[in-house]
């Protein structure tokens, strides 16, 4: 079981930390019949307690930083973080803005970056699948 169980059954929780909704719409687009991530066992869940992967969008505003940390802490191990979009990866157009504390990797550890403004659903799926590698590493580490 172990490693392969994450490969085919990833539950994803979406955290918007002040994004413009562009990336959020693309995440939802990945669920539509055209892309249908459920065929890979990827499911969007409503609570971080159920999640294996956190999809973080947005540049992390001052108000959201504490909440993002809390959501990260609420997610049970093993977990991975995927940043979706240019804002979360590099602060994007909000670079050095007064009310932004991001990018996301300044707040919580990040495993995969998916750049783009917004990234295409294919790229988001690719990012989530890459996060499996991290989960595998953690699962293997726990066994050793």
């Amino acid at each position: 079981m172990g490693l392969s169980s994450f490969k085919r059954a990833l539950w994803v929780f979406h955290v918007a930390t002040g994004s413009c909704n562009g990336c959020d719409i693309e995440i939802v687009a990945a669920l539509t019949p055209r892309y249908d991530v459920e065929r890979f066992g990827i499911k969007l869940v409503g609570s971080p307690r159920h999640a294996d992967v956190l999809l973080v969008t947005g540049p992390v505003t001052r108000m959201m930083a504490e909440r993002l940390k809390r959501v990260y802490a609420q997610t049970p191990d093993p977990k991975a973080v995927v940043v979706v979009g240019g804002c979360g990866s590099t602060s994007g157009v909000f670079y050095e803005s007064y009310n932004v504390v991001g990018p996301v990797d300044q707040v919580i550890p990040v495993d995969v970056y998916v750049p783009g403004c917004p990234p295409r659903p294919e790229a988001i799926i690719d990012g989530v699948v890459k996060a499996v590698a991290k989960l595998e590493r953690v699962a293997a580490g726990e066994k050793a």
Partner: protein
Amino acid sequence: MSGVHLVWQAAAVMVGSGVVGLVYKGLDRKLAARMQARVGPPLRQPFLDLGKLLMKETVVPRDAVGWLFSAMPFLAAVASFTALLYLPWGPFPPILRGYGDAVLVLYLLAVPALAMALGGFASGSPLATVGGQREIVMLMSYEFPLAVALVGVVWRLRALEVGPAFSLATISANPLWTAVGPLGVFGLAILLGCLLVVTPAELSKIPFDIPEAETEIAGGLMVEYSGTYLALFYLADAVKTVAMAALVVTLFIPYGIAAPLGVKGVGGQVLDVAFFLVKVFVVMFAAVTTVRVAMARFKVDQVVRGFWLQITAAAVAGLVLLVLDKAVMG
């Protein structure tokens, strides 16, 4: 019957129903995906999900009432599995026949919902508390039409004097459709319809998934559950789906296929069990899968009003038709 024999049979039914429940969950998801023009997850997806959940960390929140929070997933799973021991499986009578009847099955089917609500209250999350309150309100609204449907069947059966009417073995051995007149058939059809409406509510599936409502209350009752505990609720849900569909089959379509086809012995029994599983699947497909694809979520007040007024009125009408049928048929 010897104790060893009983344990052996019970274990077979429990493992079998667990597997069947998960396979049916996979079929449900696959068929729902196909109806939405998607490819959908593989059939073994529920097994993969369960395996993965068992790998995950199980968190007990600091604000939770620990023992209650931890006990409820086990109670839900145990009650779901126990309900199956009181239900007949095709040609085989209930394993625990003589120890409990149809009323006990109704109670056992209500226990997982209560366990989820209690677990939600114990988890210390306001979202779960809202979910728990919604679950209890729903429980109070759909239990009445469910009881009326059951009582209708049992009352008519009692009038036929074929044995202990509340026993599920008696109910499944005496299909009512051919034993009643045209009025009774009409009444039974109405009761079957009511029971099919109650089924998705009993299982908290769309359009009655208001206690879980991912988009408003983030998973509601389940919001704080993770890892092994979530896996237990997942399994309980799969098994309860089979139990509820099996109850509908037992009450209204307890027909076998082996006798009409003239197959006897072990082959006939295998055929009957397979046919029983097909019937359970058809009930699940009709009452859960198609409904959840076709509809959106109701509001809780709509559900309560609908079950207390319309569905109860329909169920009572069905019951009255059965009574009139008895008066006509004598």
